[in-house]
């Protein structure tokens, strides 16, 4: 190495010496030849210099103007100028985002300051411009007398070659100026105004200064001036004689530099070629001597290691003939080195069950000179089989004809047997865990595994069919579980017959099946499959001599279209199946973007309802009910509302349909019930008792045996609790248990009323047998009474019927004064509706109870003689409630 380094250094030193000598010669020649041309160049250089400087200064100013223009066009700055005060911070941020300016000020259309942002480092510095200069030109811009081109003012800076610029631009909207934005900045013009060396001195002057510069400038020669386009100032250059020398020296230096560059090429070439031809071969010879010595030592060590190893080692040539083996090879195979030499390994160890394909693979790898690892069944010398792991690697010294192979031979007979046993056991357990024992179809776990294996996105869409049997429960109930199992097996058989090998048909629940179609299936093919399966399943079966017929509903989902992913297939098909069931069974529904949007929206609303129930957001509003003759309040009806944290008060129409589907109605009922009783109790305590509170209830609440206990939680004083039920509930649920329960509730002090009477299930016989305390006429009956005689007669007959059965009659939906007058005349007992009072929150109920339920309609109603009285009396003064079944039943009041 040292010898090689020494040769290189000597050689390169010689080249460098020659190069330097050549440069010195060229420099002397240039210096002598260039003197005469320098003077001519000086004059041209000055003019060119000023033009360049002017252009550079204009570019700098254009950048400033562009930045200011961008600010004036910033939407937040515009909006703030126009008075949207909430954008002030964003306007400030827009200004601060450009740190170029020393200060930026914004003024409105009258020149009043809106914003002023200054660089903190300049706060103690004096202002360069007068306040009037900041808004100069504003009135002309606002009036349109001046076009919206920027104004640029100049002041010299404190530092040498610095300049203060003030740029003013109008802030416009739709071409109308509504304010002005001014930006002040200091620009370091050292690079523009002055250069070291051959450039003349340059200054910025205003028009006023230019006109008077003859008196001021102590130059030896007249200066050269050039206006800066688009401004009111110019650039001025002096003509100092020193500039000539500066320009000449620069020229000579350039010529010398050119010569240096030109001579570098041949000398460099000489150096590179000389290195390749002389120095490099010398160094290579020295290196190869050292490598040869190292490799000899390494080979001796490797041979010793191979002999001592526990694994067998075989060295062969390219055709596969054995060249060398170690002692471990003999131990494993039974063949000594002498017995193995010259033979091929495969020929030596081959046996009847040896896998020819593996042998062939090994041979191919050897031919390609590639390493290979393989496990193969061979036979020892004594013909006993053994499993061998071969790890074969080529060995080469870099010469193509000098390739040999080294094989590590390991006996893995015992390990392989153990491994095979374990795999077999696992597979058996896996199969058992993944199949349904009754139908032998893949089970839910197998389906989940298949779905998990689907990549998050596949190139082809996947389709999944959800199958649910219709009327299966009746088979179990009527023919027994054995028959039910037979039906399920029959259905499984249909699924297997109709699906392809790549499809996955699984049983996932009692009577529920899923088919995951193979890649390439489309929605149309899935629909056809569903139709065929539907026909198969619904065909009549004979089970134990009994004819049996069931049906099936199908929900189909696909990732085609991209609005659901593979992981959503099952639940989307589930949602489609649900709709198929709702449509009346035996149907097939495809999950569509519309269903998907609806599902997402419903999920959001569902989560909100569940949260709302947990957080006590469901409460009651109260709608007063009034005596038809006296206009006194006789009670309130509690109506469910949802106090939503984001959307305020929501009416039942917005949440009840979804709540009903989720079976959350009972929880909502419970919350409304508790709220209503709590508030009425509070009104009693405050001395403004309400005679009666009504709740809308369903069958489940009636049958709740804890209802009486719940009421007792609050002290309601003399306030009655009325339970309003739809007439359809009372008609449908007239079992003996239900009627007995109603009787118990009456004995406990509850009133029972039929709600929406006349809405479709009107039954006089039902009323007569049930004998509720009151009935409420449906608003569809009340609404037309002011325009239809028939409607009026119908309502009258219902009121008369109530009178005959000693049932109080309440009219709902009283919307006008005319409604109220007619109902009063017809003898209705109680009125409820918007004309009298709307449903109101508890706070308003309290206020109205104190000051009166002042209704505009009633005030202006010529028939009503007084406003509705406030609740200022004790309940003891009120007419006693009309309980039937009590000993002191009151006679029907005179109307």
């Amino acid at each position: 190495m040292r010898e090689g380094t020494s040769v290189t250094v000597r050689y390169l030193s010689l080249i460098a010496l020659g190069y330097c000598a050549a440069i010195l010669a060229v420099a002397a020649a240039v210096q002598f030849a260039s003197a005469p041309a320098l003077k001519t160049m000086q004059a041209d250089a000055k003019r060119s210099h000023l033009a360049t400087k002017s252009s550079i200064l204009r570019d700098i100013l254009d950048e400033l103007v562009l930045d200011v223009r961008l600010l004036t066009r910033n939407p937040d700055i515009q909006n703030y100028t126009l008075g949207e005060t909430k954008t002030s911070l964003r306007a400030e941020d827009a200004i601060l985002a450009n740190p170029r300016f020393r200060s930026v000020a914004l003024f409105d259309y009258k020149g009043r300051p809106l914003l002023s942002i200054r660089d903190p480092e300049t706060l103690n510095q004096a202002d360069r411009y007068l306040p009037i200069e900041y808004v100069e030109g504003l009135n002309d811009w606002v009036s349109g007398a001046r076009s919206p081109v920027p104004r640029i003012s100049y002041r010299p800076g404190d530092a040498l070659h610095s300049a203060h610029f003030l740029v003013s631009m109008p802030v416009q909207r739709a071409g109308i100026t509504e304010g002005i934005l001014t930006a002040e900045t200091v620009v370091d013009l050292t690079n523009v105004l002055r250069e070291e060396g051959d450039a003349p001195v340059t200054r910025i002057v205003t028009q006023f200064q230019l006109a008077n510069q003859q008196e001021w400038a102590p130059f030896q020669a007249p200066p050269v001036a050039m206006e800066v386009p688009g401004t009111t100032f110019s650039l001025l250059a002096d003509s100092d004689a020193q500039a000539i020398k500066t320009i000449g020296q620069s020229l000579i230096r350039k010529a010398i530099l050119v010569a240096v560059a030109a001579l570098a090429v041949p000398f460099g070439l000489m150096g590179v070629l000389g290195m390749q031809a002389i120095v490099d071969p010398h160094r290579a010879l020295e290196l190869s001597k050292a490598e040869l010595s190292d490799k000899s030592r390494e080979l001796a060590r490797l041979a010793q290691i191979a002999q001592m190893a526990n694994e067998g080692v075989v060295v062969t040539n390219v055709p596969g003939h054995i060249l060398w083996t170690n002692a471990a090879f003999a131990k494993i195979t039974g063949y000594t080195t002498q017995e193995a030499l010259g033979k091929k390994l495969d020929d030596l160890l081959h046996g009847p069950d040896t896998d020819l394909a593996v042998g062939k693979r090994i041979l191919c790898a050897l031919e390609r000179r590639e390493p290979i690892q393989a496990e193969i069944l061979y036979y020892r010398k004594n013909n006993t089989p053994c499993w061998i792991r071969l790890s074969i690697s080529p060995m080469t010294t870099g010469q193509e004809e000098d390739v040999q192979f080294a094989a590590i031979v390991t006996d893995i007979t015992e390990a392989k047997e153990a491994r095979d046993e374990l795999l077999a056991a696992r597979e058996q357990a896996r199969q058992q865990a993944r199949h349904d024992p009754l139908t032998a179809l893949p089970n839910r776990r197998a389906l989940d595994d298949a779905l998990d294996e689907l990549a998050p996105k596949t190139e082809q869409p996947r389709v999944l069919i959800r199958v649910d049997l219709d009327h299966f429960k009746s088979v179990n109930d009527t023919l027994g579980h054995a028959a039910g199992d037979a039906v399920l097996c029959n259905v499984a058989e249909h699924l297997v017959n109709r699906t392809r090998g790549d499809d996955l048909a699984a049983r996932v629940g009692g009577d529920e099946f899923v088919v995951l179609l193979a890649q390439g299936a489309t929605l149309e093919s899935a629909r056809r499959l569903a139709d065929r399966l539907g026909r198969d399943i619904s065909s009549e079966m004979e089970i134990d001599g009994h004819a049996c017929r069931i049906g099936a509903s199908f929900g189909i989902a696909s990732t085609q279209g991209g609005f659901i992913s593979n992981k959503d297939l099952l639940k989307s098909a589930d949602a489609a199946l649900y709709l198929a069931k709702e449509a009346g069974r035996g149907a097939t529904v495809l999950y569509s973007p519309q269903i998907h949007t609806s599902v997402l929206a419903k999920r959001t609303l569902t989560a909100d309802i569940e949260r709302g129930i947990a957080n006590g957001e469901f409460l009651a509003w109260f709608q007063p009910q009034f005596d038809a003759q006296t206009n006194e309040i006789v009670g309130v009806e509690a109506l469910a509302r949802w106090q939503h944290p984001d959307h305020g008060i929501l009416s039942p129409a917005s949440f009840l349909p979804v709540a009903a589907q989720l079976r959350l109605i009972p929880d909502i009922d419970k919350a409304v019930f508790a709220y209503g009783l709590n508030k009425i109790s509070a009104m009693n305590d405050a001395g403004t008792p309400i005679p009666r509170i009504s709740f809308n209830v369903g069958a489940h609440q009636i049958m709740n045996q804890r209802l009486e206990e719940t009421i007792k939680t609050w002290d309601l004083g003399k306030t009655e609790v009325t339970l309003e039920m739809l007439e359809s509930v009372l008609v449908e649920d007239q079992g003996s248990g239900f009627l007995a329960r109603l009787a118990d509730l009456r004995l406990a002090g509850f009133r029972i009323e039929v709600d929406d009477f006349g809405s479709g299930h009107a039954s006089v016989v039902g009323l007569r047998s049930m004998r509720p305390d009151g009935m409420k006429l449906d608003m569809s009956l009340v609404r037309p009474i002011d325009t239809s005689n028939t409607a009026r007669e119908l309502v009258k007959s219902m009121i008369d019927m109530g009178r005959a059965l000693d049932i109080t009659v309440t009219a709902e939906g009283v919307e006008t004064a005319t409604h109220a007058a007619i109902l009063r005349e017809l003898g209705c007992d109680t009125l409820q509706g918007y004309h009298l009072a709307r449903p109101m929150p508890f706070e308003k109920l309290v206020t109205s109870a104190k000051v009166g339920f002042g209704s505009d309609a009633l005030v202006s109603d010529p028939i009503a003689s007084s406003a509705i009285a406030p609740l200022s009396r004790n309940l003891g003064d009120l007419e006693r409630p009309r309980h039937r079944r009590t000993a002191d039943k009151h006679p029907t009041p005179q109307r």
Partner: protein
Amino acid sequence: MVRFSLKWLMLCLALVLPGIASSQDQVTVYIDADYTLTQHPAEAIEAGLLAAISSHPTPANVRVVAIDNRANARRSNDTLDAARNDPTAVAVFGGMHSPHYLVNLEQINKSGLPLLLPWSAAGPLTRGAHGDQNWVFRLSVDDRKAADHLYSVALERGCQRPAAIAVDNPWGRYNMSELQKAAYTRAQVLSEAVVLHNTAGERTVSDAVKRVAQAEADCVIIVAGFELISTIIAHLANADAPPKIISHWGILGGRITERIDFDGITATGLEILGTCGLHQYAARVSHHIAAERHFPDALHPREHPAPHGFYHAFDLGRLFLLALDRARLDAQWHQGIDAQRDALRRAFHNLDGTYEGLITNYQQPFQPVTPQTPDGHEALGREDLCMTRVARNGNLKPVFERRDPVQPDQLDLAQHHGNPGRD
């Protein structure tokens, strides 16, 4: 002789009193509106107020000063200041834009000067304070109801995937959140919701329209001013399957047929929100004809691009004059301008009787705003919202539809207890 003397006395009073009133009791009303960028609503409002004054049964003795705010909230604020400092100004009539008053609402309610709004629709304007602290009165569309109404109209027109585009200012953003609430309460979502800056250019609008198309919206509800809406409609009308457009009334800042050809407008089935003045023409024809006599240039409000401004300003102007008559009889009327303004405010809360207006009948149209009566300073309700379409000549035509009298509040648990979601 007594009768003769009485007759002469009455005649003298009739001659003298108006003169006394005119010389000692003249009041001023300011109009703060945009006469430059969107001049049609401003013209209509001014015409409505002047018509109300000239048609008042007794000499109103009201001077009207109209000032152009050029859609600049600071100019608007300066006008309010000028009115506040004018010792004869008893009220200000506002113009089209809501943001002007929204940014200064607190100051307006502390000013002690009634601000009467015949157009600005933003919900919070009339709900900025309670009781006698609230000085803002409105006879116009109320955005608290408008968004839900627009969404209902979209559904009534058969739309299944409504989208919304709104301008990026407090008015637009408020209406967008109300539209999202309207969808939510119906267990639905907007298929797309886009907010655009007022100065959005062709490319930005085109990208927004592409988003709407990709969402497969069959209806687009737009809340924006005239310029932006024109650009949006132009792009939507050129789509392969133009969605139906249901617009808030910001579009009435100009005449849309001057920007887009009629066939394009027809392709979108454009409907525009407003109040029911046009719809009530036949039912109240005598009132309309009487009012129209005072419309300038012998035109009809129905031929004006922004007729609602006339109807609202007329009705509000008449209510103002009724309140003014009452306030002039107040015991504190002669105790200075602050007392006069307060008397006017109290008179607004105590307008009894029924005034038959151009849009509806008003019975106690205003009452003190409280948490329980947030609509106290709203003279119109949801039932007064109506939709219009555009005729070939650019005039608005009413769209008549059946009104369902059943209120949503009437639905309650009773409807669902009979059918608790069985399988």
